């Protein structure tokens, strides 16, 4: 038995380096090139906080389910662990992730379907939306009062069997910075709806307003804003747009001439990735990349393009298409006036000598 095995047996299996919990909100992402295979390791999972991460105790944490339900109730962490669990492999992407950016991660999640919690609480027939509230609190906008981070999600999405109250990521309990002890997970939707450190679910009717969601001003952010001849249209963000990112090579790299494996990941919120193309000439011509991992709803695929590079200057781009007929745009839609869904094909320059 090795020392490491002994440490695992004594409960020290999780003592891999973890960053200290700082007091302020964190904004962390890591190069995609650090990922072996398709699963983002816990310590390379991106983090986007709005407020300071709370320090929660398993012994006192509770999730309250209330609002338009016939049996409001509180679930302890023991309750959550003893309810039927489901596993989902899913990408989580920050809605403000830059084109080609790495604020996206793919993990194996485990948790209790949110639908199960809503059924246990006796979800009302008039349920239309669900407000999800985290334990992290702060002032979202300068003029708004300090309130918990909150999101409102249509009840249909919550009742989808893959929408989870997740408590595990890649077989281990959630790290504090990713929502320990439990968070919402809405596969296929942008990350902000997957509320971390979840502590309250409020079922709303069509007429109800999510209190923290509206009072904090959250209803005014995370919207698609489109300039139209009739004026600006505002639509809440939901499904992840089809996207790809080149993990290797990096921007500005000097490469030796010869064979190189250009590789990266592609994902979409609807359907699954159907194909990925790579251009080395700034989008004038495209070559099919080889998909190295199986496709499927919510997960990303890893792809490779075998590039025999002769000396010269190159502009690399990748472009994905999904089974629902969506293809990555080559440029940003000029009518968009917001900073979300940045899924155009990012040009990446490198020199071969």
């Amino acid at each position, binding site marked *: *038995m*090795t*020392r*490491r095995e*002994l*440490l695992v047996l*004594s*409960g*020290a*299996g*999780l*003592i891999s*380096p*973890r*960053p*200290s*919990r700082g007091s302020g909100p964190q904004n962390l992402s890591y*190069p995609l*090139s*650090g990922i072996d295979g398709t699963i983002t390791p816990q310590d390379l999972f991106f983090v986007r906080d709005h407020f300071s991460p709370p*320090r929660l*105790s*398993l*012994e006192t944490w509770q999730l309250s389910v209330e609002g338009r339900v016939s049996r409001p109730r509180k679930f*302890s*962490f*023991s*309750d959550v*662990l*003893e*309810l*039927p669990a489901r596993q989902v492999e899913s990408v989580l992407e920050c809605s403000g992730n830059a084109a080609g950016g790495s604020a996206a991660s793919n993990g194996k999640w485990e948790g209790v379907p949110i639908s199960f919690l809503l059924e246990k609480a006796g979800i009302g027939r008039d349920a239309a939306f669900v407000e999800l509230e985290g334990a992290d609190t702060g002032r979202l906008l300068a003029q708004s009062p300090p309130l918990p981070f909150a999101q409102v999600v249509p009840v249909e999405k919550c009742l989808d069997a893959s929408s989870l109250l997740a408590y595990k990521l890649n077989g*281990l*309990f*959630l*790290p*504090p910075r990713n929502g*320990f*002890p439990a968070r919402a997970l809405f596969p296929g939707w942008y990350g902000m709806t997957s509320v971390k450190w979840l502590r309250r679910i409020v079922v709303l009717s069509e007429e109800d307003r999510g209190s923290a969601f509206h009072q904090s001003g959250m209803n005014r952010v995370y919207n698609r804003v489109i300039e139209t001849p009739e004026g600006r249209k505002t639509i809440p963000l939901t499904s992840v747009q089809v996207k790809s990112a080149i993990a290797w090579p*990096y921007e500005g*790299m*000097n*490469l*030796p*001439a*010869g*064979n*190189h494996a250009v590789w990266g990941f592609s994902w979409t919120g609807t359907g699954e990735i159907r194909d990925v193309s790579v251009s080395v000439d700034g989008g004038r011509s495209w070559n099919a990349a080889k998909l190295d991992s199986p496709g499927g709803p919510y997960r990303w695929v890893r792809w490779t393009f075998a590039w025999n590079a002769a000396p010269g200057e190159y502009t690399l781009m990748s472009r994905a298409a999904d089974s629902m007929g969506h293809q990555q745009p080559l440029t940003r839609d000029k009518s968009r006036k917001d900073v979300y869904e940045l899924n155009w094909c990012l040009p990446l320059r490198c020199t071969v*000598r």
Partner: protein
Amino acid sequence: MNSTGAYRCAALCVEILALSAGLLAADCPPSTLGREETVRRLQQLDQAAQTSMRQGRYPEAMRAYREQSCLAPDSSGVFYALGTAEAASGDFLSARKSFAAADRLEPSNSLPLAMLVRVNLSIGDIDSVKAALWDAAGRFPRDSNFHGAMARFLIQNKQYDLALAESLRAREAGSPDDSARMELAVLENTAGAYDDAIRNASALAQKTGLPDSLRASAAGVAGLSYEGAGQRDAAIAHLRDAIRLDPSRENSYLALAFILEKTQRFREAAEVLEQGRRHLPDSTAILLPLGSDLVGAEQVQAGIGVLNEFIRKSPEEPKAYLELADAYRKAGDPRQEAKTLQDLAQRKPEYPRIHRLIASALFNLTPPDYPAVLAELDRADQTAPDDPDALYLRGKVFLATHRDAEAETALRRSIEKRPMDPGPYYQLARLYQKLGKKDLAQDTLARMQSLKNLPAK
């Protein structure tokens, strides 16, 4: 009620009094016995079943209990006993039905639920285990003994998540005893609930009157939780406390050394393990990290001695051979390095890349044994063809033995396989220089230079 026997007797009496002929199970033949005969028959069956159980004749016990269950179909105790006999004979599916019947008949008793948890786990039906635990949580929320016992059972069966759930329920239901609190701290640490684990474990570590061994375990768990929470100094302090409180606890030395090693404090790690070795002279587990840390602390000869001692005691551990080979390399003894790796190859012929490692060691001999290197690389090719490291080494051998064309092929293939490794470019540039191909040499060196300016992965 804790004892199965007591439970059974009491339950049987209750059921006999409540006996109702109209509630016979569907697969029971209709009874022709009168009330008194029924009672007598039940007693006979009970005695016979108990005797069979004591003697390990479970099928006979099952037959007797089944007949009893027909005569007393609303007896929770009979179904409980039947379930026990069925479980003892390995018929878990039938046992599950029997325990479920017992639970339906007497919902105020937690024993059938506890047995449902056990048989469902034996079947491997985790969802049903969860369902039984959930049910128990609703019906027996304040029964800390039940939840504590479930937690211990689940720990024994490596169901750590559910053990955590039950351990938390036990804590919520009442003040846990010290060992239950210790179990909870360990489970919380494993779950990453470091603040909880630190609170529980530190309280035990500081509790006067507890045996030092328990306080040492608690200090150890607190140390590991501090490490998990990123508070390394507190982690080290607590693990040192654990060693002070109970110097015979091997894990404390191993954990502390591991943490010190992570920050390259090899000398301190080695000192901790040496201290452990003095207290635990028969410990084998200490030897491997000790040898490795001594080498890391540049006490290479001492490390070699310890690693050799470990291999004598645990010759099947491949990591020890690799550590020892590394130590010999650091000591400038490639012959012993190669021999150590050859010993590993003999014990574990399938060990990944072992022949390439041997080849590297043989290449470093003075003078290098080129034919032996190439022979090992041929062996390496059989399991990992086109390994860029093997191609690179082959290129170096060919370059040294003036087989220039073969050297160029091998080095170019190595570059093709791993274009970002500067090593083969350097060797290839040397080859071109030797062949008088100055432009190619310069170009190859320039490519190697450009690799040095790349960001780290």
